[in-house]
């Protein structure tokens, strides 16, 4: 049966009225289901799905898979392209990811406007993100307990994925790395075996009913050496600087600057750029890597109700690549971590 996000429906009908759109299409495909699920929270199994809403808020769902149609209780139309609306003033959220055969220049893009609405979470959405954050904490505990010398990276990922699925994760986004100062970033797991002295970095991102939360931590196999401890001190200070600066009304560029200034203070400013790191954080929600990114060249005014991970992850010559970060909820006067995992350099 169709499960419609009533708050979003109301906001989207206002958006349609504001822009003079007759129909709003919220499109999703296998990788990016988020625009569709913002209104119809159904984890479709087929290749494509679209929710088509008119100005009255009436929603029609089109799926490319007959089993999805059956589960939703909607008619199945084998020709997905033909079922998409072609008349009237049509706007599409997710137009940019749509295959070009499905869309044309006459359709407006509603992508940015819908993403902007999605940035501030509803109470129901926040409840799911809290569940995902709680599972990320438990998942990290399992990850740290499971890691052993001699275990391959991909076996450790298998253990972690199984744990998260056992406890209700719909999916999980996870990267990993292991080793010493030669490690410059995270990637999918390899056959490398964990060794004493390794830094084992991971970001876990379980998804609950569509919504993602993330945690980043570093684990040392054995006792951390002096360089790893020194590096951790810098990362911890940078993570705290980000958390202290994240509040409604601030420019997200300033959150990135507060993070990076800690590295600069210790003489590691060059390691805050794109050569060594991607972003200093990002928004979370129905996609695990939403805009706005936390970067010094991204200007966006933070709003209460946003959910952001701030992670000063980067390479340092002291330690190799290290990661630390929590999922943060922007509150009325600051932010609160949704993670309860201890903020420390883990070791075992």
């Amino acid at each position, binding site marked *: 049966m169709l499960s419609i996000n009533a708050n979003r429906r109301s906001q989207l009908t206002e958006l349609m009225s504001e822009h003079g759109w007759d129909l709003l299409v919220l499109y999703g495909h296998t990788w990016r289901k988020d625009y569709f699920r913002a209104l119809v929270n159904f984890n479709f199994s087929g290749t494509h799905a679209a929710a088509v809403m008119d100005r009255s808020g009436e929603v029609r769902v089109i799926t490319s898979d007959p089993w999805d149609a059956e*589960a939703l209780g909607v008619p199945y139309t084998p020709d997905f392209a033909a079922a998409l609306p072609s008349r009237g003033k049509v706007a599409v959220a997710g137009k940019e990811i749509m295959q070009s055969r499905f869309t044309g220049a006459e359709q407006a893009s509603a992508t940015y406007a819908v993403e902007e609405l999605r940035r501030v979470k509803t109470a129901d959405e926040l409840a799911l993100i809290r569940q995902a954050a709680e599972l990320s904490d438990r998942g990290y505990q399992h990850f740290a307990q499971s890691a052993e010398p001699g275990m391959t990276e991909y076996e450790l990922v298998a253990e972690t*994925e199984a744990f998260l699925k056992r406890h209700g994760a719909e999916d999980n986004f996870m990267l990993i790395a292991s080793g010493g100062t030669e490690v410059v970033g995270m990637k999918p797991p390899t056959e490398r075996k964990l060794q004493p002295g390794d830094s084992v970095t991971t970001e876990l991102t379980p998804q609950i009913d569509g919504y993602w939360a993330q945690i980043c931590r570093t684990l040392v196999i054995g006792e951390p050496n002096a360089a790893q401890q020194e590096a951790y001190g810098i990362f911890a200070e940078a993570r705290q600087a980000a958390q202290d600066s994240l509040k409604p009304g601030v420019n997200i560029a300033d959150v990135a600057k507060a993070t990076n200034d800690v590295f600069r203070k210790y003489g590691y400013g060059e390691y805050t750029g794109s050569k060594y790191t991607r972003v200093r954080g990002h928004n979370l929600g129905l996609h695990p890597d939403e805009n706005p990114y936390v970067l010094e060249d991204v200007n966006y005014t933070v709003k209460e109700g946003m959910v952001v991970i701030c992670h000063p992850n980067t390479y340092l010559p002291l330690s190799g690549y290290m990661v630390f970060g929590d999922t943060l909820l922007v509150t009325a006067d600051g932010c609160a971590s949704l993670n309860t995992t201890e903020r420390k350099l883990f070791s075992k």
Partner: protein
Amino acid sequence: MKRGWITWDKAELPPSAFEARLEVVRKQLDVQGLPALVVYTDVWRSNQGRYLANFMPYWNRALLVVPREGASVLLCGLSPRVYPWIRSVTILDEIRPSQNIAQQLTALCTERGWTKIGVLDLPLLPSDLAIPNSVDVPWSAIHPEPDYAELAMYRRAAQIAREILEAELPNAAGLVDHELVARLELKYRRAGVEDLVILTTNGATPPLPPAGSTLTPTCAVSVAMEYRGHWVKIVRSGYAVSTQAEKTELLSGPYPYEHCTQADLPAGAIFAMMSRSSGDTYRQTAHGPELL
């Protein structure tokens, strides 16, 4: 998600297989009078890039450019920090950082003097990627049917899918669906599976993502899994299987590439034929479907 072990075992998939595939591309470029073929790839649509270079973007997107003369070039949204890893699991050497892959493609075309290029399955490109002066090169033109190495990979994938699910399914009754999925996840990922989507049903609905239901002795489980770039799909059930296929899908990922009618499939097509209680992956032959 693609969280499993991504590797390239050259004994399993020899470099000569890629050389032969690229030769087919070059011949097609000759036929169409084009200097290069552009292959779009992202987390979802990774199979064509994988076929030609063994490259899989575990995140982000990329364009693989196969020139008629010379080595392939990857225009890649991923960080240069992972390029050594990419080189270790692909045939690629030249990788260009590309936050904007369309812009980088334009720059490459200008640099090489290309005024017109081929794009693999042009109508399937994301609409934000405008590639000027491009010509469609359909997948079927460079991939008339799976080659020997590809078929061997599909057979291995299908074997892994069957062996693990058939070993676990007899123990499913009484388990919460999340628990069964966790047990399968652990075994499949340990076996080297890169990506995995598991759906279950007790019969009242089509197979769906787990939702906390207790499985009955007559439950059915659908597994879509990717082994080193090769997707297969199977369905098994604790009850008498239906032989009436409810859907037939050309495989390109965890989900169907397109639904199709089995009678219309070209020879060599890899497809899944499923009811909600049984299903397998096949190759279409002149004599009908061959179970993989």
